C-alpha cells in the first residue's frame, strides 16, 4: 500500500484515475450500485483510510494493554462477570460500568476490534489487489518514453554532451548499466529512449508482505473454527485419561517432577513423563517440559501447571475395586482454603470430593488425613462428610474408601490448531517480504539519447524518488560512470 504513491505521484507512468473519482453519469439502478461499489473500492484502496484503520487498531490494542482484561471464561458467565467487575471497581471507580459497556474489559473480543480488524483486512486485500496490475505492467512493460520535461523536473537529473556518435554512447551506457545490475529497455523513434531498473521484482516483496497479514488472519480463523484447546487438562501420576475430541487417543502420566535451584529456591524444571496410546498401542512417549511440548500429529501437549494429588481407592462391599487413582487437588475450597479435588464413581450416583488439610491448625482435616465429601451426582445435594486417616480403609455409605498416599498431578495444555502451519507460512512471508522490501533498493532511471548536428550526441538521465542521500549518491555515481565509460578514463 505504502509504496506506490511515490511513483504514481512523481513517476512518468500512465496517469490513473482513482476509482472513487470516476464520473458516474448513469442513473440506472445498476449504475447506483456500481458507483457505490466504486466508492467503497476507492475507500478501501485509499492509503489514508488504511492509515487511520492501523492507528485505530493500535489505539484499541493500547486499551487492551493498559486496562485489566477479563480472564477467559469469566466474560460468558454472568455471575463470574459481576464478581470480577466488583473486584476491579476500586481501581476504576465510576468508570467501571462505562468501560464494561464499551466492551473495554474484553477489548480483544469486542465489536470494535473485530470491526476495525475486518476493515483492515479488507483494506489490505483491496490495496494488494489494486497494486498487482500496475506492478506487473511496470515490471514487464515499463513506460520507456517519458517526454522531455521530465528530464528537467525530476528530483535527480543530469544532461551530458559527447563527441561520440549515439550508437557508441548507447553501447557504453548499456554496459555500465549491466555492470550495475540494471535491466535496460530502449525504444528508438529518432531519439533513443532508455529505461533501466534494478531489482524490479522488489515491489512484489512489499505486496507479499502485505498479503501475508491476510494469510496470518486466515490461519487464525482456521484455528478458531477447526481447532480445540483444553488448557485445564489435569492428570494425576499413574492416571490415564482420554484426549478430548481425539477418538481412541489417551494419555498416561508416569510421573511428574518439579525441581528447584538449591540456592534461590526458584523453579528449575517441570517434567511430566507421559505416554500416549492409541487403541491400547503406545504411539509416543516423552518427557514434556515447558519448552518441550509433545507433538503427535496436529495435537500438542504443553506443560502448563501442576499441583498435589491424593491417591484414593474405593471398594464395594464385596471387595471389588471401583476406583483407584490419584485425584488432582486442583481447586481451593471457599471456606478454609483447603486444596480440593473431585471424581465420580462409575455406575454409582455419587460425586466424591477429596479435601486436603491446610496444616496443623486445620480444625476439620488433620495432617495425614483427607476429608471425603459425598454428593449426589444428579442433584448435587450433600450426602455425608468424613475425615479418613492415610492407609486406613474407612467405610462410608456402604463403600470402603482408602487414602493411600499423596502424589502429584500435572496440568497440561492440550491443543490442536490446524491453522498453525498457515500462520507460520504467513509469518515467513511477512518477515521476508518486509525485509526484502525495505532492505533491497529498487531503482528506476530514464534516459534519452539524441544525435547532435556536429555528429556528437546528447544524453540526459533522470530518476524519480524523494530526495534522499543514498538515491542521490547512487544517481551521481551512475552518471559519473557513464560519462567515464563514454569518454574513456579521465586524462590526468
Amino acid at each position: 500500500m505504502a509504496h506506490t504513491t511515490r511513483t504514481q505521484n512523481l513517476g512518468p507512468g500512465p496517469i490513473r484515475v482513482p476509482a472513487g473519482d470516476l464520473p458516474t453519469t448513469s442513473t440506472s439502478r445498476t449504475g447506483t450500485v456500481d458507483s457505490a461499489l466504486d466508492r467503497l473500492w476507492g475507500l478501501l484502496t485509499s492509503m489514508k483510510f488504511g492509515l487511520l484503520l492501523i492507528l485505530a487498531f493500535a489505539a484499541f490494542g493500547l486499551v487492551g494493554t493498559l486496562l485489566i482484561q477479563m480472564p477467559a471464561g469469566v466474560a460468558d458467565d454472568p455471575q463470574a462477570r459481576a464478581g470480577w467487575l466488583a473486584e476491579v471497581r476500586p481501581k476504576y471507580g465510576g468508570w467501571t460500568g462505562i468501560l464494561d459497556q464499551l466492551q473495554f474489559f474484553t477489548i480483544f473480543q469486542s465489536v470494535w476490534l473485530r470491526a476495525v480488524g475486518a476493515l483492515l483486512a479488507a483494506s489490505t486485500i483491496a490495496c494488494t489487489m489494486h497494486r498487482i496490475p500496475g506492478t506487473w505492467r511496470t515490471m514487464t512493460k515499463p513506460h520507456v518514453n517519458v517526454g522531455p520535461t521530465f528530464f528537467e523536473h525530476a528530483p535527480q537529473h543530469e544532461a551530458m554532451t559527447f563527441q561520440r556518435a549515439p550508437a557508441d554512447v548507447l553501447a557504453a551506457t548499456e554496459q555500465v548499466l549491466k555492470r550495475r545490475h540494471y535491466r535496460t529497455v530502449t525504444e528508438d523513434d529518432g531519439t533513443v529512449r532508455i529505461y533501466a531498473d534494478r531489482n524490479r521484482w522488489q515491489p512484489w516483496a512489499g505486496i507479499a508482505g502485505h498479503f501475508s497479514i491476510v494469510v496470518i488472519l486466515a490461519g487464525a480463523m482456521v484455528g478458531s473454527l477447526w481447532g480445540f484447546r483444553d488448557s485445564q487438562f489435569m492428570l494425576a501420576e499413574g492416571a490415564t485419561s482420554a484426549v478430548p475430541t481425539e477418538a481412541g487417543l489417551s494419555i498416561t502420566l508416569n510421573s511428574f517432577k518439579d525441581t528447584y535451584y538449591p540456592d534461590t529456591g526458584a523453579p528449575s524444571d517441570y517434567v511430566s513423563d507421559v505416554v500416549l496410546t492409541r487403541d491400547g498401542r503406545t504411539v509416543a512417549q516423552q518427557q514434556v517440559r515447558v519448552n518441550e511440548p509433545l507433538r503427535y500429529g496436529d495435537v500438542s501437549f504443553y506443560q502448563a501447571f501442576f499441583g498435589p494429588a491424593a491417591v484414593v481407592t474405593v471398594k464395594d462391599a464385596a471387595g471389588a475395586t471401583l476406583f483407584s487413582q490419584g485425584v488432582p487437588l486442583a481447586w481451593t475450597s471457599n471456606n478454609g482454603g483447603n486444596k480440593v479435588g473431585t471424581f465420580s464413581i462409575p455406575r454409582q450416583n455419587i460425586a466424591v470430593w477429596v479435601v486436603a488439610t491446610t496444616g496443623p491448625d486445620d480444625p476439620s482435616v488433620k495432617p495425614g488425613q483427607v476429608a471425603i465429601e459425598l454428593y449426589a451426582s444428579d442433584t448435587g445435594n450433600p450426602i455425608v462428610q468424613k475425615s479418613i486417616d492415610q492407609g486406613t480403609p474407612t467405610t462410608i455409605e456402604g463403600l470402603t474408601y482408602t487414602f493411600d498416599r499423596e502424589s502429584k498431578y500435572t496440568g497440561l495444555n492440550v491443543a490442536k490448531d490446524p491453522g498453525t502451519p498457515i500462520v507460520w507460512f504467513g509469518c515467513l512471508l511477512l518477515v521476508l517480504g518486509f525485509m526484502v522490501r525495505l532492505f533491497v533498493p529498487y531503482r528506476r532511471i530514464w534516459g534519452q539519447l539524441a544525435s547532435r548536428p556536429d555528429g556528437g550526441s546528447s544524453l540526459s538521465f533522470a530518476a524519480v524518488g524523494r530526495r534522499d542521500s543514498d538515491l542521490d549518491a547512487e544517481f551521481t555515481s551512475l552518471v559519473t560512470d557513464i560519462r567515464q565509460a563514454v569518454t574513456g578514463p579521465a586524462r590526468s
Partner: protein
Amino acid sequence: MGKLAEYAFVAGTLSTFLALVGYVFYALSGVRAARMAAAGVPMTTAGIGFTSGPRTASIGHYASLLGWLSLSAIAASLVFRTIATGHGPFSNMYEFSIAFAFGILCAYYWFERKYRQRVLGLLALPVALALLAYAATVPASIEPLVPALQNNMLLTVHVATAIVAYGSFTIAFAAALLYLIQPATGRWGLPRPAVLDEIGYRAIVIGFPFLTLTVVLGAVWADTAWGTYWSWDPKETASLVTWLIYGAYLHARVVRGWRGNKAALLLLVGFGATLLTYFGNLFFGGLHSYSGLAGV
C-alpha cells in the same frame, strides 16, 4: 567473569556520561557558531549539519571518541556477562537494560558515521544513559533461568532482534524531536529538516523488519512454551501496537497531508509505545514476568 562484566558496565556508564557532557559542549559551541555566523562572522560549514565554530569540530571529535569508548565497554560487559551466565544477556531487566543501551549506542554510531549529525547524540545518549542508570538500580545477581526461559536459541535471537529494533527507534525518536522543534527553514544551525526526515525514515527502515522478526519469533516461542502463538499477553499486545504505529508511519510518509510533522509525531508516539513495551512487564503482569524484580 561476573565481576569483570560489572567493572565494564561501570566504565561504560561513566564514559557514556562523559560523552554526553562532550555532546552538550559540542552543541553549545555549535549554537554559538551559528549565532556568530548569523552575525556575519565567517564560518566553515561542513556540507550538512551544524555550522562549525573554531572549536566545535574538535569538541565533537572528542565526544565521539568517548562514545565509542562507552560502546566498547558496554559490549565487553555484555560479552563477559554472557560468558558468566552461559546464555545471551537478555534474561532480566538488568541485562536487558544494558543490552538496550548498547543497541542505542550501536544505532547512534552507525548513523553518526553515515550522516555526521552529532546533535542526534545529544538526544540519543541521555536515553542510553538513563537505561544504564536504571540498570544500576536493579539487582545484578546472576540467577539461573526459570523453566519458561530455558530456550537458549530463542532467548538470544528473540531479544537480540528487539535490541536492534529498539536502538533504531531511539534514533528515529531523536531525529523526529529535532525535526519538530524547528521550522521547515531550519533553526539554531540544527541539521536541516529534510536530513532529519531521512534519518528518521532510515532508522525505521532498519528497525521495522527487526521488530517484525521479534514479534514473529515471540510467537514461535509462545507456541513452544505456552501452547499458543498468540494470547493477547500485554507485552505481546504492546509490541503489536508499536509495530502498527511504525507501520502507520511508513504509510504516513507517502500520504499527502501526513508527511512531515504528522509523520514525525508518529515517531514520537512510536517511541512512547516502544518504552511501554519495554517497561511493560513491570506493571502489566501477564506471561512476560521475567523482570527478576521480586514482588513486582
